[in-house]
């Protein structure tokens, strides 16, 4: 039941191949764009796991920052290797989420949304306020790139492959979690928490579990981002970025695993291609957003279903 069909496996293989050769045909700033896009794919997919229980948080961007800061400090101040700092940064983000679960999951729905925003801002203010060790508003710079067998990870192409590999592993892991018994229970907690509770599901524990796993993986994404940029600042992970995450997930759709990925990929590419219209770019972005919510309320992921319904509806069932 959980095995992928050969057809979708071939599709994924083709996609990976395309991603693998793409950087060689791109200009420098497009190579950058692609790296950040792949990282953002991990951001939205990890956010999706948090939302599976029906609780939408506004702290995901900040958890990305928690991972980023953790690995910046570990590699710079403690001279830890990137390869150790990467999982540790995820653990720090996950552990922070575990602690925050105690106050945050006493709330649900709208109150949880606002509570998570407040908690996130509190963390961001700590980064600004405590110059040591967080560096204040200017953050931490001079974060070392990864080192491995003489490969130059300042080169966008090698960093591209690094990001591709790590994000792929993370996506497979997230997919397997969603398809496991844990994923089923996360959905159950969303649809009918009292019923789940009545057959022995500790709903609090599963809400916090989703939050912890999601934060772990977005912490990894944050690490990948700042080791490429070399700098981490509090403003990278503000509410502005959080709103983008929400838009990507909502426009892409959150019913299926690939919905959020579609959202981030298509919107980012559109946004990038309107770069030369500079001033009216936000207006175009906004118009696309409104149009997609009006005409595709279930997100971009519903296009294939609609397409099929339209063109194959009259076909008799085999």
């Amino acid at each position: 039941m959980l095995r992928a069909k050969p057809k979708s496996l071939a599709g994924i293989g083709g996609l990976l191949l395309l991603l693998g050769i793409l950087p060689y045909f791109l200009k420098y700033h497009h190579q950058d764009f692609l790296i950040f896009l792949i990282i953002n794919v991990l951001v939205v997919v990890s956010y999706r796991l948090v939302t599976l229980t029906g609780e939408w948080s506004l702290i995901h961007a900040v958890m990305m920052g928690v991972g980023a800061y953790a690995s910046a400090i570990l590699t710079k101040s403690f001279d830890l290797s990137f390869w150790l700092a990467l999982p540790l940064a995820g653990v720090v983000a996950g552990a922070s989420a575990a602690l925050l679960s105690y106050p945050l999951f006493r709330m649900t729905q709208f109150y949880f949304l606002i509570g998570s925003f407040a908690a996130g801002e509190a963390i961001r203010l700590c980064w600004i306020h405590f110059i040591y060790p967080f560096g204040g508003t200017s953050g931490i710079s001079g974060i070392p790139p990864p080192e491995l067998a003489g490969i130059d990870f300042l080169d966008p192409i090698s960093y591209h492959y690094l990001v591709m590999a790590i994000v792929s592993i993370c996506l497979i892991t997230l997919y397997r979690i969603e398809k496991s018994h844990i994923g089923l229970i996360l959905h159950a907690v969303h649809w009918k928490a009292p019923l789940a509770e009545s057959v022995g599901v500790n709903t609090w524990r599963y809400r916090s579990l989703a939050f912890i796993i999601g934060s772990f993986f977005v912490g990894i994404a944050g690490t990948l981002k700042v080791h490429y940029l070399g700098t981490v600042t509090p403003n990278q992970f503000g509410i502005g970025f959080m709103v983008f995450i929400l838009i990507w997930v909502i426009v892409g759709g959150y019913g299926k695993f690939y919905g959020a990925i579609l959202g981030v990929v298509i919107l980012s590419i559109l946004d990038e291609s309107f770069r030369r219209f500079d001033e009216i770019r936000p207006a175009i972005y906004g118009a696309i957003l409104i149009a997609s919510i009006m005409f595709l309320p279930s997100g971009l992921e519903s296009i294939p279903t609609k397409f099929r319904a339209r063109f194959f509806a009259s076909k008799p069932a085999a």
Partner: protein
Amino acid sequence: MALLDVKDVTKQFGGLTALSNVSFKINEGEIRGLIGPNGAGKSTMFKNIAGFYTPTMGDILFKGESIIGKKPSEVARRGVVRTFQETTLFQEFTVYQNVLVGCHLKAQTDIFSALLGLDKEKQRDAHTKTMEVLDFMGLTNRKDQLGSELPLGSQRALAIAIALVSDPVLLCMDEPFAGMNSEETNHMMNLTRKVRESGVTIVLVEHDMKAVMGLCEYITVLNFGTLLSEGTPDEIRHDPRVIEAYLGQGAH
């Protein structure tokens, strides 16, 4: 020793007393009716037993141990499982997935086992158990349908299947016959008897007198939050206090 021992339970909501010093006992293997006019406190009693409410005063012992103040999931772990009024199931899941959620206590796993496939045996057991219960409740041929697509009778059967698969010792059923026609009611009565024969003790909150009188050997009657009467269906049927509570004074 009684399986469930409700001792002087009082439940207040602000100034309103929903239950006042109610005591009764349920023995293992029983099928007990809990009845009373609207607002008698049946559902409140029920929620106290299943951990959704904590009594203001009094105690509830299950197998001799107090279960008050425990979360519903903790109470369920000890073997007290409830079903819900109306049709409460996972509309968005298939019938099979619905029952699989009920297997949670057996199938629960940690992330690492789930990722490395170390929980395979557990999940296989859960699958076997799910298929057994689907068969028991006569739902096997509907297992791939969505919960929302089922007719009312099957939805109720599914709700019981979800509870049953979690291996309850005491199953609390909240108005399982509400809104059913007589054919569906008969079918559900047979299913309930079958569940009881499989060794589960049952408490039934119900308005449908025909079903209650037909199923239960012993009935507890609540009225205005107090215990009004207890006895066999025959005794209850002829108890003037019960008749008065239901039909008003002067009716007999």
